[in-house]
């Protein structure tokens, strides 16, 4: 890929954004006086701000890139990650769980576990979480540095250093408040930066209906666009969200069944993430009062519900464009080095049109990619008939690579439609989301590390000043560790697979622990600890015994023995989560019943549902009552599902 020359206008927009972000950090610095100001924002932020930050902390750049990629691979059904896999859990968090997080005065979700159970459960959760945030932030930074390297030709180390540096400055200056404020800025950057790209893309394919018509012709023969090359689907496979899923795993490009979708994604994974992950919950805990805290996930649910149109539709546009020959676009193929292109151009020139099989093999070998035989054969024939220029041959080669690099979809659309100026805006939006991904993780890390590990185990009972300074030092350490994690991800091609695998093991069972802790007073510390441990172990075991179709045993599973083959990796993940949750749930229940309670009803007041006085919302207007708003949002979400049924 040729680096793009940014123009002065693009640089100006980029620099303006960075200047404002640093300025926010600078302005907030003078309000940072205690560890609580720095690490928890001293519970002072208005709802709409925490709400947008809540959604923005989740909407990292990897999500932007990944959702467009999935939109291309799976179509509108990708929206299940929003309508099934987020909204219900966010509403549950607001209505049922937030009162305990906020009301218990815990400063983090691990600290809630300490209050509800004991040190062991907190320690296990805090350590796992701290490690995960560092790797998550590292993956994000690695992706950003790679992007700047490929797109603009910046040096990887320089890109990594400068972006980490910006994040370090504003987080160190303004703490969590800085991160939250920047996330709000980033929210608007993303929405306003990507909306024109979606608009131009839709206009280019001829509107929503024309896009759907094109996708229907792709669905019955996906191989034409190098999608999912072996199977043909019903025409609505890319344009209906539920019908293909209900028809069974063989009838939808995700390869999942409805049970795994609803229980695995909609319940276990989604509630596990949205209701327990401190990265997002921390934003709600920074709200200024209980009502604001409970309304935070609800404010967030509104844009979340409509994000599919911003982040998934671009992927669908890309597939539609690819199927239209006159648009001169394809979903980007895997990145091939200039050197290999040069070799392949030579191979095309020296190939004989008479022996097309040999020509195809020679060209494919030179490129190092799988190629479409018919396209290579016609390219060779065209070159033999009348000499093509190197640029024309290269274009032909580009179009004949029979694989897609889905992560490149969003950038390719930005490049296709954005003139200088708008390009700078879209690029800044992307950059903003990478940086706030890092900031979000670092602010969650420094809180958990300072309060749940450092203060709990290493240095107890010092002055607040001491923990304030520690929080700042840990912020620096967190950024340095993230950079280390970024280099780790850069070093090993499958680093990201491994890291996400471990995330999956740790995250799958955790919701059972919180659920039982909050809603069953009989749950004991020993039960929770061993149940969680068993749940994590069971996910590793499940993974070692199962694999998805077309994957080889190894990092993708099945390394002990293959007992079960799933139609897709996604199905494997959903079932793994369902299994680990069930194991954790049952183990926790059985062990709790077998062990004695160590906390009395009085100890658990404010921590367990049945022992906590219900919140009376009499004095707040009806449109601010979490239960009312929650029901309304749920209805809207159901309607969206029905529209795209």
């Amino acid at each position: 890929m040729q680096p793009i020359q940014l123009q002065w206008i693009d640089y100006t927009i980029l620099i303006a954004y960075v200047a404002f972000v640093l300025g926010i950090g600078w302005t907030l610095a003078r309000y940072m006086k205690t560890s609580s100001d720095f690490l928890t924002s001293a519970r002072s932020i208005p709802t709409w701000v925490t709400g947008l930050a809540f959604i923005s902390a989740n909407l990292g750049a990897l999500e932007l890139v990944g959702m467009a990629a999935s939109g291309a691979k799976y179509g509108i059904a990708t929206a299940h990650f929003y309508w099934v896999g987020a909204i219900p859990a966010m509403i549950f968090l607001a209505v049922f769980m937030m009162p305990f997080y906020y009301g218990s005065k815990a400063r983090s979700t691990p600290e809630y576990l300490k209050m509800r159970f004991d040190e062991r459960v907190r320690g296990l959760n805090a350590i796992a979480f701290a490690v995960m945030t560092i790797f998550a932030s590292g993956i994000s930074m690695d992706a950003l540095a790679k992007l700047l390297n490929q797109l603009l030709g910046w040096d990887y180390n320089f890109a990594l250093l400068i972006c980490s540096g910006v994040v370090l400055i504003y987080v160190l200056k303004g703490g969590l408040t800085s991160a939250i404020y920047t996330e709000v800025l980033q929210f608007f950057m993303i929405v306003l930066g990507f909306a024109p790209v979606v608009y131009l893309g839709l206009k280019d394919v001829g509107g929503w209906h024309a896009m759907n018509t094109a996708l229907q012709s792709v669905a019955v023969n996906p191989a034409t666009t190098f999608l999912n090359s072996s199977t043909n689907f019903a025409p609505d496979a890319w344009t209906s969200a539920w019908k293909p899923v209900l028809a069974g795993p063989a009838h939808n490009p995700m390869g999942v069944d409805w049970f795994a979708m609803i229980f695995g994604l909609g319940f276990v994974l989604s509630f596990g993430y949205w209701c327990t992950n401190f990265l997002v919950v921390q934003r709600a805990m920074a709200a200024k009062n209980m009502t604001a805290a409970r309304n935070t996930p609800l404010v967030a649910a509104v844009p979340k519900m409509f994000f599919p149109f911003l982040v998934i539709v671009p992927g669908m546009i890309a597939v539609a464009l690819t199927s239209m020959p006159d648009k001169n676009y394809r979903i980007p193929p895997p990145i091939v080095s200039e050197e290999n292109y040069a070799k392949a151009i030579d191979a095309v020139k020296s190939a004989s049109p008479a022996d097309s099989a040999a020509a195809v093999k020679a060209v494919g070998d030179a490129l190092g990619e799988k190629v479409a035989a018919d396209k290579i054969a016609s390219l060779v024939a065209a070159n033999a008939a009348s000499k093509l220029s190197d640029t024309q041959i290269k274009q032909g080669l580009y179009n004949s690579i029979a694989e897609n690099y889905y992560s490149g979809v969003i950038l390719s659309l930005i490049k296709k439609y954005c003139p200088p100026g708008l390009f700078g805006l879209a690029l800044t939006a992307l950059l903003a989301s990478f940086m706030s991904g890092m900031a979000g993780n670092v602010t969650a890390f420094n809180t958990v590390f300072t309060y749940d590990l450092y203060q709990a185990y290493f240095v107890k009972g010092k002055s607040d000043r001491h923990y304030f300074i520690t929080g700042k030092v840990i912020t620096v350490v967190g950024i340095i560790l993230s950079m280390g994690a970024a280099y780790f991800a850069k070093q090993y091609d499958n680093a990201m697979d491994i890291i996400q695998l471990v995330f999956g093991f740790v995250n799958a069972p955790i919701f059972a622990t919180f659920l039982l802790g909050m809603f069953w007073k009989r749950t004991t510390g020993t039960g929770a600890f061993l149940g969680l441990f068993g749940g994590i172990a069971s996910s590793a075991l499940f993974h070692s015994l199962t694999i998805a179709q077309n994957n080889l045993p190894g990092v993708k599973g099945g390394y002990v023995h293959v007992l079960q083959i799933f139609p897709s990796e996604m199905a494997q993940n959903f079932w793994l989560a369902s299994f680990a949750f069930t194991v954790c749930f049952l183990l926790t229940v059985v062990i709790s019943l077998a062990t004695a309670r160590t906390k009395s009803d009085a100890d658990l007041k404010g921590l367990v549902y049945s022992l906590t006085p219900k919140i009376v919302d009499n004095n707040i207007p009806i449109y601010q009552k979490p239960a009312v708003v929650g029901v309304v949002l749920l209805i809207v979400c159901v309607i969206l599902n029905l529209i795209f049924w």
Partner: protein
Amino acid sequence: MGLDIRWPIGLMFILIGALLAVFGAVVQSDHAISLGININLIWGIVLLIFGVLMLLGAVRGGKKPPTA
């Protein structure tokens, strides 16, 4: 926490919006890539309006953050 975030958001989008609009109106002449639409001008104005609305909110809200 001291700072009303609507100030920086408003100011930033006014700045970027104005830049884009002026760039689209004065400097850029070829709109082939954006389907013949002067998207910089149009979108610059949209950003500008958004920025002004944010600032208006900040001015009207004064130092008091909104309740919802």
